């Protein structure tokens, strides 16, 4: 069994993606507060859901990236 080494650059890239997902879900929470006219305290009280949604976005993006990677690998092999 080989050691898996994740380069620092790769780590930074994944963290950036995760941060962008968190920012999007945070903004989504803000938008929901405005649309449904609920309390601004939900910026803090609903952080749990914000984290869960951020993770869901990250997983969705990971799936899309995986699909793109598989398709591009397929094309390279055909060439």
């Amino acid at each position, binding site marked *: 069994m080989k050691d898996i080494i994740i380069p620092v650059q790769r780590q930074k890239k994944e963290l950036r993606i995760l941060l962008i997902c968190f920012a999007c879900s945070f903004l*989504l*929470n803000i*938008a*929901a*507060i*405005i*649309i*449904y*006219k*609920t309390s601004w305290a*939900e910026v803090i*009280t*609903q952080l749990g*859901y*914000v984290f869960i*949604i951020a993770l869901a976005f990250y997983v969705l993006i990971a799936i899309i990236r995986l699909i793109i990677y598989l398709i591009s690998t397929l094309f390279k092999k055909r060439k």
Partner: protein
Amino acid sequence: MSTDKNTKQVDLELRQFIKNLGYIAGGTALLTTVPWLQSFTTDKLSEIKNEKARVAILGTGSRGQYHIMNLLRIPHAEIVALCDNYPPNLKTASDLCPKAKTYTDYRKMLESKDIDGVIICTPLNWHAPMVLDSLAAGKHTFCEKSMALTMDECKAIYEAYLRTDRVLYFGMQRLFDEKYIKGLSLIHSGLIGDIVGIRCHWFRNNDWRRPVPSPELERKINWRLYWESSGGLTTELATHQLEVSNWAMKRIPESVVGMGDIVFWKDGREVYDSISLTYHYRNGVKTTYESLISNKFNGLGEQVLGHKGTMELEKGQYFFEDVAPAPGILQLINNVEKRVFSTVPIAGPSWVPETASKQKPHYVIEGMVHTTAGGSMVGAENDGSDNLISAFCQAVITGEKAKDIVEECYSSTMLCLLGNQAMKEQRKVDFPDEYKIPYLKF
């Protein structure tokens, strides 16, 4: 009488609760709203700790035995006599307290100088004669609810109470139930807003009968089933809840309408097994009362309906009318899910978190609250009965008359009897002027 020194004093929790009520209120302001509790304190308990009230139980059937079990846990009480003219009940009670002297004639028992107080647990038609004889014999007296079988008897008891210097208590145990005390104080503080209605109900599913060894004992043992000895479901059950209703409203109803029938237990009984009453207060608020003993689904309850919320006193919980909406993010997810997936057949339950507004209960007392479904024909546990009996025994020692207990019982019993009249005569009945007492506020 045997006492278990390791048994916790039966009423300590309530006494401490009352002490805390006093502190919270910044003094005795709150206690003035429940005047019957003013002397039910831990300080008073320490004053009488070396003394015992010598009490006699008059009527040793199921309720009498229930009180015996409570009295055996009260350090300031001693059961010195038992009286019943039904030998099996007297024997059972005597087995519980073997040192107590037994009698079959209550008048003979009242002659004894060794008795300070009498606890009456007999059929309703015996309440008035026994209470009056007991007071006349100079005994402090406790009588189970309701006060009496007729309005004239109630009036006679009230007038004797005004003349006597003896202590007189009645079995209105909700007055000593912490859950009700706290719940009513919250109602009076305005928590649920203005009271706009009260709903009371008591449902059971049993025939109310006791086993009868021979036919001639039918009316003696199943006294609850016959008008000559019982007021039926009103005096046996409704009296407590009507008392609570008056306590909440701080007034009593002016009139009542109702209907009563025997719908299921058609076994030769006379009293109704299904009743429905509406009591009307002067300000338009109504208390509806429903009881039947052939279905127990709804159990028992008192709902005080306010314009801001609802208090369910028996359950010790309350709800507010205005419920906060679900968080915005959950509403957004819910709406997206509906739009995206409504036309897509996906098997199984939705993964979307629930966003429907739900009324969450708030609790009158934190921690375990004793509630009852109301099915017991003897008595519930921790419903205030033990505290009430303890307070009576304390009063027997100190000679301190209870405040408002007699008046509360008078009011609720009168309402029960008026309800029976309304049902029998099938008309609206107004509270008669000749039975009004100064305590009553309409």
